């Protein structure tokens, strides 16, 4: 394996890393000028510093976005199939597709960053965001436990920093600490689980593990290994009962970080979780059918799914802050998505991936709206959204598309996603053994409708509260962000009307 070939196959990751370094360098050099100016003019430092920081932000975001665009281009030019180092870096149509999806999500997160005025060090922030994207891509494209763990850690470390980035906000620090503590504990569990699996099979490549495990029955030690490994991923996808960090992180973190955690991190985690259970642990599938459970990972995931759906939806009912509400709904959506993995098979996997992708797109858009509203009203409680329709019909319309897609209302992407997931789950078993799980999910989505409708009621029906109405209506110049939100809304609508565009691509890319 020559370095040149490695560079060629890992060119996408390399481009993103180089972009991150360039952005970091620009951030460093321009800020020095800015501080110089600030020192010189002691009086108007706030103003000058602010505008110079905004300029840095603009340059850095532009370069980051450009780098991601180039990286997407290189991803398109990757060979159809290749394997490096016995599965450490695998290139298949599926991995290429999800690399592109992850980079596109990161692209929108960069756009959100551009208009985040309060961000102190945009260069560093964007660099870390890009490095986190590298983590996503490694997770997506690796079929080897060691590499997966390094990818998880790279992603995790970047996200801890991104969550705690806003040092002027106490809640950001709290969120960062919580995320870090939960995250590192769950990493330890995963590492322990992986080491047990390695001990049993003597190898770290997923395909080889599956061969080794095919002859072994489910014995206690293996069960411990599987459960411990799954815990780490349950944490990443915020499945109950490992979701406790999510509300604080979603609410306290800077908005681009929250959007990135909710979208990119989730998509990549589902891809890799699916690969681990469906490829690596394939012989130990088990069965989650009612009255006919067979030990294996699928009963574990089924239990996680049911619990997440119930906990997420019920707790979300009590929220009055939009970001917290999105966090609990994220827990519920993780539960829905897990159903696809429980159903197993390529159909189930592709249903889960379709669902999580559309969910990620929806959440980035929703956070975009939250960011815009927060800029105008300095908050993201329900009261800040009241009467949004009269202030900005465009944002209100986009938000309703996002919320209704999450609720699973046609003709939006979420509706098809749910139909796909549930139908796959029912078809997975001839006797409709997973009907109980589908019933729980249907019940959960009925509950979820209530709180999504409450959000829409606040936006469309309520009168704008006095404090917001009387504040001077400064038209924010963030046209770019508005366009981004509108594009995302259009994508959600398009994927609902023409789901085949993504679903067929996913099925074709499935091995």
């Amino acid at each position, binding site marked *: 394996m020559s370095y040149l070939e490695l560079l060629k196959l890992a060119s996408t990751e390399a481009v993103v890393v180089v972009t991150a370094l360039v952005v970091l360098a620009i951030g460093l050099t321009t800020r020095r000028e800015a501080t110089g100016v600030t020192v010189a003019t002691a009086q108007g430092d706030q103003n000058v510093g602010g505008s110079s920081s905004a300029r840095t932000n603009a340059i850095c975001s532009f370069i980051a976005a450009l780098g991601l665009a180039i990286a997407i281009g290189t991803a398109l030019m990757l060979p159809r199939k290749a394997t490096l180092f016995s599965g450490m870096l695998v290139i298949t149509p599926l991995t290429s597709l999800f690399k592109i999806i992850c980079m596109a999500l990161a692209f929108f997160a960069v756009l959100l960053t551009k208009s985040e005025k309060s961000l102190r060090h945009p260069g*560093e922030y964007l660099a870390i965001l890009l490095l986190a994207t*590298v983590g996503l891509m490694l997770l997506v494209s690796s079929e080897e436990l*060691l*590499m997966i763990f390094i990818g998880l850690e790279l992603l995790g*470390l970047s996200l801890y920093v991104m969550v705690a980035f806003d040092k002027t906000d106490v809640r950001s620090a709290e969120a960062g600490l919580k995320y870090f503590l939960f995250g590192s504990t769950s990493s330890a569990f995963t590492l322990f689980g992986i080491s047990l699996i390695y001990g049993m099979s003597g190898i770290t490549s997923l395909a080889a593990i599956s061969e080794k495990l095919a002859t072994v029955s489910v014995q206690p030690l293996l069960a*411990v290994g599987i459960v411990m490994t799954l815990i780490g991923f349950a944490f990443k996808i915020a499945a109950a009962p490992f979701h406790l960090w999510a509300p604080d992180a979603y609410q306290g973190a800077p908005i681009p970080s929250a959007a990135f955690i909710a979208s990119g991190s989730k998509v990549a985690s589902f891809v890799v979780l699916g690969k681990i259970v469906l490829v690596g642990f394939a012989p130990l599938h088990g069965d989650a059918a009612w009255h006919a459970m067979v030990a294996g990972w699928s009963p574990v995931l089924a239990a996680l799914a049911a619990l997440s759906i119930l906990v997420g939806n019920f707790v979300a009912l009590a929220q009055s802050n939009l970001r917290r509400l999105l966090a609990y709904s994220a827990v519920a959506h993780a539960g829905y998505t897990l159903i696809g993995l429980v159903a197993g098979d390529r159909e189930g996997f592709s249903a889960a991936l379709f669902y999580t992708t559309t969910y990620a797109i929806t959440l980035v858009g929703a956070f975009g709206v939250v960011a815009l509203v927060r800029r105008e009203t300095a908050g993201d409680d329900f009261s800040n959204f009241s009467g949004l329709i009269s202030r900005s019909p465009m944002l209100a319309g986009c938000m309703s598309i996002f919320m209704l897609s999450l609720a699973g209302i046609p003709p939006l992407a979420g509706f098809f996603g749910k139909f796909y997931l549930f139908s796959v789950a029912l078809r997975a078993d001839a006797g409709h053994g997973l009907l109980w799980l589908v019933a729980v999910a249907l019940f959960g989505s009925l509950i979820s409708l209530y709180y999504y409708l409450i959000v829409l009621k606040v936006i469309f029906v309520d009168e704008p509260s006095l404090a917001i109405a009387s504040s001077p209506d400064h038209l924010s110049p963030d046209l770019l962000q508005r366009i981004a939100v509108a594009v995302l809304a259009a994508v959600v609508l398009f994927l609902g009307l023409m789901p085949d565009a993504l679903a067929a691509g996913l099925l074709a890319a499935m091995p």
Partner: protein
Amino acid sequence: MPPFLFWLFASLMLVFGAAVVLNRNPVASALSLVVSFLGLAALFMSLDAYFVGIIQVLVYAGAVMVLFLFIIMLLNLRAEEGRRINWLAATGGIVVALILVIQIFSVIGHFQAARQTFPSLERSTTDDVWNIGALLFSNYNLPFQIVGVLVLVATIGVVLLSKREPR
């Protein structure tokens, strides 16, 4: 290595690991950590992993711990105030932890391979360092480089989060 040495080092590790958490004085905590690392290094050596054992001593027990102590001294940290312990939560935590420990022990007890002794390793003609280096630059080249990126993230993060912002 005779079994009693294993038990000695393992218990040394656990006791001092607990001492890291229980000590109120940061300097005492840091020194306990050193002892814990030394025990770990001894265990590595007992598995014929000399290189890892040496690195454990040099890097962790040596360099990292010195940095820890430096920072503790520089920041002039004093002993932590005793906190009131929520006994209910503590009991719950201990019970859960105990259950986990018992489970793991019983599981390992039932595992057949755990009762057999490992065949001893063949003496390799090349030394450890050479082997590890060769692996790092051939089979494990990609993870090795990615770890570099990971360290970069950690560096940026630490600098940013600990930096004092001008008001």
